[in-house]
């Protein structure tokens, strides 16, 4: 397995991250992956409403948000967060269709990563999204 190396610039190092996903195993996976790039998970939630509340309270640098969740879905939660707090939100979704990606872009999220995720592809995509977000 190819792993990120210390020589590559790592914009996520030390960044505070909130993970919102209704699959516990995805939380386990993200904890492991984000630890490898020095990011800190400051909060986790299993649904959109709880997640939005956590984000607004914790004011993280990055939010990793699942799309399909019970109650408030990922897009609704993202919209609610962005209405009062400008943050890099990266959507995680099993839906690859362009219409969902366009919807996410319109709301103002800065990345869209299609499941299933693996460390090899997820971390570069997350870093790219965060890098693109920073200068705005």
């Amino acid at each position, binding site marked *: *397995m190819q*792993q990120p190396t210390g020589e590559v610039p790592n914009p996520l190092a030390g960044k505070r991250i909130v993970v919102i996903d209704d*699959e516990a*195993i995805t939380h386990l996976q993200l904890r492991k992956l984000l630890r490898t790039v020095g990011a800190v998970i400051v909060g986790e939630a299993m649904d959109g409403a709880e997640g939005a509340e956590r984000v607004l309270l914790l004011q993280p640098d990055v939010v990793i948000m699942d799309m399909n969740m019970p109650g408030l879905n990922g897009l609704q939660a993202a919209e609610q967060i962005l209405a009062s707090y400008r943050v890099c939100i990266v959507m995680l979704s*099993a839906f690859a269709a362009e219409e969902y990606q366009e919807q996410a872009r319109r709301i103002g999220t800065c990345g869209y990563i299609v*499941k299933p*995720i*693996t460390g090899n592809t997820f971390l570069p995509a997350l870093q790219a999204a965060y890098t693109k977000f920073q200068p705005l």
Partner: protein
Amino acid sequence: MSTLNPGNPAVSRKVLMDDAERLKLIEENVRDYAIFTVDTNGCIASWNLGAERILRYSEAEINGQPLTLLFTPEDRAANRHEEEMTAARETGRAEDERWHMRKDGSRFWASGILTALRDESGALRGYAKILRDATDRKHEQERAVQILESITNAFFALDRDWRFTYINKQAEPLLRRSREELLGKSVWDEFPEAVESIFYTAYHRAIAEQITVTFEEYYPPLSTWFSVKAYPSQDGLSIYFENITDRKRAEERQRQRERRAAFGAEVGAALSRNDALDMSLQTCTEAMVRHLDAAFARVWTLDEQGNVLELRASAGLYTHLDGPHSRVPVGRYKIGMIAVERRPHLSNAVIGDPQVGDQEWAAREGMVAFAGYPLLAAGQVVGVMAMFARQTIGEDTFNALALASDALAQTIQRKRAEAQIQTLNERLQRLVTETHHRVKNNLQVMSAMIDLHTYGGETTVPISELQRISAQIRALSSLHDILTLSSKHEGVVEGLPVRPMLERLLPMLQSAAGEYQIHYEVDDGLLSVKRATALSLLVNELVSNALKHGTGSVLVRFRCDGHTATLTVENDGPGFPADFDPVTAANTGLDLIDAFARHDLRGTVRYTNRPEGGARVIVEFPLD
């Protein structure tokens, strides 16, 4: 002629003398009129030049000859001359028109007046006759009559008092009266129903404005359509007319054919368009009103249970879809009976029809006819179509309605089938989307599992890790088997039964357990697909651990008690070390158990040892 003055004899004589002279002068000079006198014996006493010219006898030849000489043999035989003189004696004068004979035996038509001559005492002194040759006029009249009798049109003439003066033979059958009955009588007396009709106003207008009037009108007493042309004259009105009933009926039939064709076309177009069913049915009822003269028309469709006819379209007098007829139980009212009897109910006598319950309403609204059809598709009643009309409904219209009812029934069935297909398609689409989503989620689970076991800077992966992942894949696979079975019955699966899932999973685990035995006791319970997935992976993880750390058999129990489920997995063997602490002992396996049990299943996990030895893990979680 002069008048006598009995009051003054001298004056009277003078006047008489003057009159006689004047009369003499007139007699001699009037050439176009024959003027002659006849004595009381019926012999000619005087003869003017006009008489000589017309009758060709000289005065010398005719004087003293009997008046009968001037009559035709047949009139002589019939004593017409006596009749004339008798009439003149009794009434003072007798007018007549008849054939007379000239000296040479030739005949001419004479129009004349015979006047009785009396002296001062009133005694009859003789007769004066004035006649003129009216042969030309007679011939003209005869020619005119000949023409009028030969034309195909019916004709009659009225004088200014609206009395019949002439009726040709063609007019008799049309008026259904003989000329003898009508001549001399007032048209308005003989045909009183025509008073105040179009006939009356048109004839009066022709006379008043001296214009020709032309019109077509129906005369109910004769059940006949007439085409009339009335020409005014000084004498009255000449009326040509013909019976156009056949033409009118043909026109009406043609009009009805065209309307039925338009009805069929509109219904056909409405039913072939891809409109919603209610809109198609509404267009059909409106076409029944517009083209078939329905007072109102309605369509009901049978509900899915086949018990109630639901009003779906209504046009004409009533357009509402609520009220007592909005839901008609099958067998109730005439509409419900039509559905039961499965045959049309057609009536041109609504009043008195026992199936028309509200007779008072029908009479008040002037309803005359009713047509109701069951809508039958493939032998099944799918609805009822009905209309009321304020006039009788013809057979052709019934036929048009029957055709429309067939088309409506087919459409209702087709649209229902389309709706069912649409529903199935939508269910299928949801199912496909749901399935794709689950597959993607499970791929994500597997991907996460791989990362958890392998993403840590290692360059090699132990076979045991790959076997764990393989076991998790089998666990998910068993879940999909149950999903497939459930989908066949329910479409989109909202809940999965636990027992069949575990009864499929545990034998699979047994196959990889070697000589160790996996025993299980499993109750049934229902979990959401997501939580069932977590349970499946949890059981796999716990059993894998039990096999790995145990020395003999593994027992799996799944118990449901009300709203709580308890999963127990235990093994033979040393059990957990005395200082075992799941928090401090954290590893990937425990992390997975914790994630599935506490987060996905919202439960609790206890790690204990059995009194008889061996480890026991108890997971409690709420059922959905």
